[in-house]
């Protein structure tokens, strides 16, 4: 048992921390969003240069990391700084391409690692809620071609991507596990309409309409009809990433709040002297430690067989969801009015923590899934 980071990961963490402390701030992010920019391309290039994207992939895939603890180290820092640049799609869509792609397809990974190409995962649909197996988008063979039809919702960074990894059904009914395939779809393919919007937490997202989108058979990623297992594994990596990001956001919110409790005076005393706040703060600190442990468990079991991996994924996402809500709500409450203003950084962390609960299954969803996995 060893809870220390390797030297490489420590170096990456420290470099990333310095880079973000230096270049990234709530004010800059606000200004950028106000200017209508989806994210800061310069920062993204900088992250690529630091090796942040390379750390998402194993050496065999062209990177130098790719393990659970690599995701954890990077995303904790991204979360702490409130980074909205598209690292997550590199884990999700990039991870799928790296895991399933043939040699030609895997060429994209190199560009993703270099930060010159964004690939986004298009898996959600209007009725799917959090179920990866709920796929109504169809992929029909027409001679040598495959024709996609359907609408994909909540495609994170969809309007910023050059390539989409799309889940579509080649066989079976809407919620069947079998029959789902994954396809690489360049966004400029005729029939693809991407409508971008911004989420509550500032991250860009999109709806993607697929209207008789004709692809060559070679656009398929992995085996026909067997996409679900890989999708689930990629989402487990995505869950590790956003759980670690949430942990970082909790740490940042905690920092702001402890600072505030020390500085802010009311009725003549620092409010941190009020015992009721002290005890609630203690409960919050405990939950942040619990969240860290849950992320460690998840990261450390990411390469285990499916059952064990998913049990830890569910446990982590459930605990992170509860801890995140507690931290967001308590930190706002302890701040009072200032904690509710957009111009104070806490608002970003609170929004991000809350919205992370709506990504890839919320607290309740993963609790039920945990029960089902344990019973199965």
């Amino acid at each position: 048992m060893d809870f220390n980071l390797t030297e490489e990961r420590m170096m990456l963490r420290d470099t990333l921390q310095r880079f973000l402390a230096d270049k990234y701030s709530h004010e800059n992010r606000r200004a950028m969003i106000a200017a209508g920019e989806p994210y800061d391309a310069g920062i993204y290039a900088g992250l690529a240069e630091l090796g942040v994207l390379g750390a998402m992939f194993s050496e065999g895939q062209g990177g130098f990391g790719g393990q659970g603890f690599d995701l954890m180290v990077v995303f904790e820092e991204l979360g702490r700084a409130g980074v909205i640049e598209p690292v997550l799609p590199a884990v999700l869509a990039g991870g799928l391409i790296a895991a399933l792609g043939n040699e030609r397809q895997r060429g994209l990974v190199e560009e993703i690692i270099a930060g010159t190409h964004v690939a986004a995962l298009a898996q959600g649909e209007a009725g799917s809620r959090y179920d990866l197996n709920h796929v109504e988008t169809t992929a029909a063979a027409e001679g040598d071609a495959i024709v996609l039809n359907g609408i994909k919702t909540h495609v994170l960074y969809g309007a910023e991507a050059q390539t989409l990894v799309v889940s579509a059904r080649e066989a079976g009914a809407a919620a069947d596990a079998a029959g789902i395939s994954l396809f690489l779809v360049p966004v400029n393919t005729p029939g693809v309409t991407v409508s971008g919007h911004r989420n509550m937490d500032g991250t860009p997202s999109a709806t993607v309409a697929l209207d008789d989108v004709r692809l060559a058979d070679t656009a398929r990623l992995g085996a026909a009809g067997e996409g679900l297992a890989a999708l689930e594994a990629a989402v487990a990596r995505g869950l590790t990433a956003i759980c670690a990001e949430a942990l970082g956001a909790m740490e940042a919110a905690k920092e702001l709040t402890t600072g505030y409790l020390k500085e802010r005076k009311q009725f003549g005393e620092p409010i941190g002297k009020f015992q009721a706040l002290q005890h609630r703060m203690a409960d919050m600190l405990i939950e942040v430690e619990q969240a860290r442990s849950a992320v460690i468990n998840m990261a450390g079991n990411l390469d285990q067989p499916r059952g064990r991996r998913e049990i830890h994924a569910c446990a982590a996402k459930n605990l992170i969801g509860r801890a995140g809500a507690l931290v967001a709500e308590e930190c706002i409450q302890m701040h009072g009015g200032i904690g509710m203003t957009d111009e104070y950084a806490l608002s970003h962390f609170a929004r991000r923590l809350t919205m992370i609960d709506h990504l890839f299954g919320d607290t309740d969803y993963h609790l039920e899934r945990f029960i089902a996995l344990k019973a199965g």
Partner: protein
Amino acid sequence: MDLNYTREEQAFRTEVRQWLKETLPHDLREKVRLGKRLAKADVELWHSLLNARGWLAPNWPRAYGGCEWNAVQRHIFEEEACLAHAPRSLPFGLSMLAPVLLAFGSEDQRQRFLPRILNGQDWWCQGYSEPGAGSDLAAVKTRAVRDGDHYVVNGQKTWTTLGQHANWIFCLVRTDPDAKKQEGISFLLIDMETPGVTVRPIVLIDGEPEVNEVFFDNVRVPAENLVGEENKGWTYAKYLLTHERTNIAGVGFSNALLTTLKHVAARVNSGGRPLAQNPHFAARIAQAEIDLMAMATTNLRVVSAAANGQAPGAESSMLKVKGTVIRQELTSLLRRAMGPDALPFQPDFLDGCSNAAALGPDHAAAAAPSYFNMRKLSIFGGSNEVQRTIITKAILGL
């Protein structure tokens, strides 16, 4: 003990319900139902409709154009208005300033200001909080110095709700800097068109500029705008805070929220069945409903005691805390019910831009913003921490 309303009260309820059905414009109702943001004109329209019926000022004396409703009648009206998805009428002039003028203002002030509240000429806002003061409202730093027949005001107020629409502000100002904290404060009415008044909207966590900072830079205010006596303003402020908290439990809002939540849960798909049939989610809704059923009765017990002339003490604080907890839980459940559809931020749709279509189902657009906005409930109007201290001190006396 009798849990039923009297025949008169039932008739009143029917009358209110019928009037709402006939009078509340459909698009206004839809805005409220879907949690969209109300424009200034929306609020003014609603006030004018209420005023035309004579129902704008439930607790004012009839002599000044009010209804003189008792607590039970007010409760019935609020309950019906919420269920009908009517907008909330603005409290600042109606139930904050007016009671102070009625109790402590001059007859001149009443005659001058009260009609203008009713007919919509004035939009009042509140100048209580100051930066860094938080729940400690007596920490007033804004100075008002007498200069002939004027006061010259300098300083800053904050958290001024909807101040961007207002033309008048009632302020706590410090008129005696040497007096002890709660003393030396005066209650002053300031025309916001006076030179030196600046309003800066503050965007909140939900993306909406609901509150404002108001700056006073050598603002000259006629001395006749002083309410009551100089340096007695804290008394009036406290009167306002302790006696005019109607509907503090927000039972009507919570009932409307619960209805919306059930509506949504019956329609949203969760793993092949409506979310309402998911045992976990159903349990969370049921738990909130059971708490709300009890709180409705707790509220009626206080309302009924108030109608019998008993002044509510710690009960108000209990209703504030529990009412907040329940409303926040319901907005949290509504957000969760939306699943991934709670993610997008849709300000154009929320602002009612005619060409903005909503992403996702009914109620999705407002779910997350409302959740974030409602965090304010436990902060403003005396934070829940302050209320808890009041509750326990009332029983422990320590």
